[in-house]
């Protein structure tokens, strides 16, 4: 027979064990099996690294520390699908890949385009596909639908952007070249379009879309977007279980319609994966 005091300890332990099993079962009601076997998620949290200063993908709601944005919503939906909570760690863009590699967090969701160079460092699971948007005056008076339609027109663009490069390359295809007007910032390029100095403005699709939305009906964005490239969830090389779990989770939210709902909330249906 056990000594009395030890028996009491045993009783307490048994009650606690039972309670924790019940608690686990309770919170795991509609949980997927994915959690088990993924070491990163055993703490019940999907730690997400993000450079939270890039609306509409990731930003803090004005005057608060509340994260918001398309990536944030997407990360929360993926986490929910995995039966864990998403927690965000604001990390500078320059150091975000090294921080993932040194296990500061489990994944990156930070409007990151999948490139060959980055793919040498980390793995990616594509979740949206973002390209360039052409902003034009409402009603699209020059009938612009694709790059070729820009020949002979004046296009305002920010200096040093991929869009400026695209216009340069387009110029080699044009009989009458595109008159490229460059500005230090994109808002000035938009202003030039708004006041009729340019026929179109050329920028990242979500930015273009936001500019059109903010213009009070003066401007619109041409769809579909041009030259889309996938944005990926960044995952450490070697985190194979996590990568598989996230791939499945993205498929699951696409199947359930939640994915489309998130894109619709941000009026960015056009960036859906093909």
């Amino acid at each position, binding site marked *: 027979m056990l000594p009395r005091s030890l028996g009491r300890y045993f009783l307490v332990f048994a009650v606690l064990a039972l309670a924790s099993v019940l608690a686990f079962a309770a919170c795991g009601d509609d949980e997927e099996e994915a959690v088990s076997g993924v070491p990163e998620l055993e703490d019940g949290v999907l730690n997400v690294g993000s450079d939270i200063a890039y609306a509409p993908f990731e930003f803090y709601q004005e005057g608060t520390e509340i994260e918001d944005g398309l990536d944030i919503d997407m990360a929360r939906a993926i986490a929910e699908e995995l039966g864990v909570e998403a927690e965000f760690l604001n990390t500078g863009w320059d150091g975000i890949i090294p921080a993932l590699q040194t296990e500061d967090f489990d994944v990156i969701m930070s409007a990151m385009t999948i490139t060959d160079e980055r793919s040498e460092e980390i793995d990616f699971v594509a979740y949206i596909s973002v390209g360039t948007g052409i902003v034009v005056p409402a009603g699209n008076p020059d009938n612009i639908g694709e790059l070729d339609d820009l020949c002979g027109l004046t296009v*305002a663009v920010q*200096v*040093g952007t991929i869009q*400026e*490069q695209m216009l*340069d390359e387009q110029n080699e295809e044009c009989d009458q070249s595109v008159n490229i*007007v*460059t*500005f*230090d910032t994109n808002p*000035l390029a938009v*202003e*030039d379009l*708004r*006041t*009729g*100095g340019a026929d179109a403005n050329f920028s990242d699709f979500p930015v273009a879309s936001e500019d059109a939305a903010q213009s009070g009906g003066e401007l619109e964005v041409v769809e579909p977007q041009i030259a889309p490239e996938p944005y990926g969830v960044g995952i450490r090389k070697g985190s194979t279980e996590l990568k598989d779990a996230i791939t499945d989770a993205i498929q699951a939210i696409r199947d359930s319609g939640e994915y489309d709902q998130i894109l619709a909330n941000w009026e960015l249906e056009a960036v859906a994966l093909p």
Partner: protein
Amino acid sequence: MDGLLAIRFDFDTVGDFLFDPIILRAMRETLYIALLAMVLGIGLGIVLAVMRESRNPIISGPAGIYVWFWRATPVILQLLLVYFGLRQLIEEDIFRDNWTRWRAAVITFGLNEAAYMAEIVRGGIQSVESGQMDAAKSLGMTNFQALRRIILPQAFRVIIPPTGNEFIAMLKNTSVAFAIGVVELLNAAKIQAARNFKPMELYTVAAFWYLVLVSVFSLLQAELERALTISERERPETLFSRVLTIIGGRRGI
């Protein structure tokens, strides 16, 4: 071991772009804008200076307000207001087609310069003894005649040196016209640098041409100042006159 600087700085790129047509065209743009704006600035500046000297507040008042406004706001802001602002206010095609970024830049720099020139010219006019005005009038000249024949010619000697400095400053300041999409020397270099990722090389090219432009105008300014000096003894030596002295063995032209 070949020297870190040499590895990172590509002299060939500097050579390639030094006489690149895009850079040369941009330099011409810089020069045209500065010259035209300066002509506008000097002309309007003289008018404003004479207006400010008037004892009639209906004439001197508006000139004072003009100088106050154009000197109290940054020129980049003036460019944005004059180009984008007016285009937004006036939606007629006839205006928008003619109100080009280039014209807006020339006019803004000119109007801005006029405010500074007004102060310089006013200083010049005040440097001429007031007794000369009375003397001219006693000979039967009108105010305008006295100004044109007696006062302004003397004032010019005081006006020329700071005007040259203003022009050199303007030549460099045209780079802010990039705010409204005008591509002049510095920004042509910037645009190219954004394409080939060699900013230092391109900025070196731009610096070279700014130095050439400013040096040429500094020499011209020195010659002009020399020509306007009345007394031979007080005539300053200029690089040009010194070269002549060395070559010809005589002083001056």
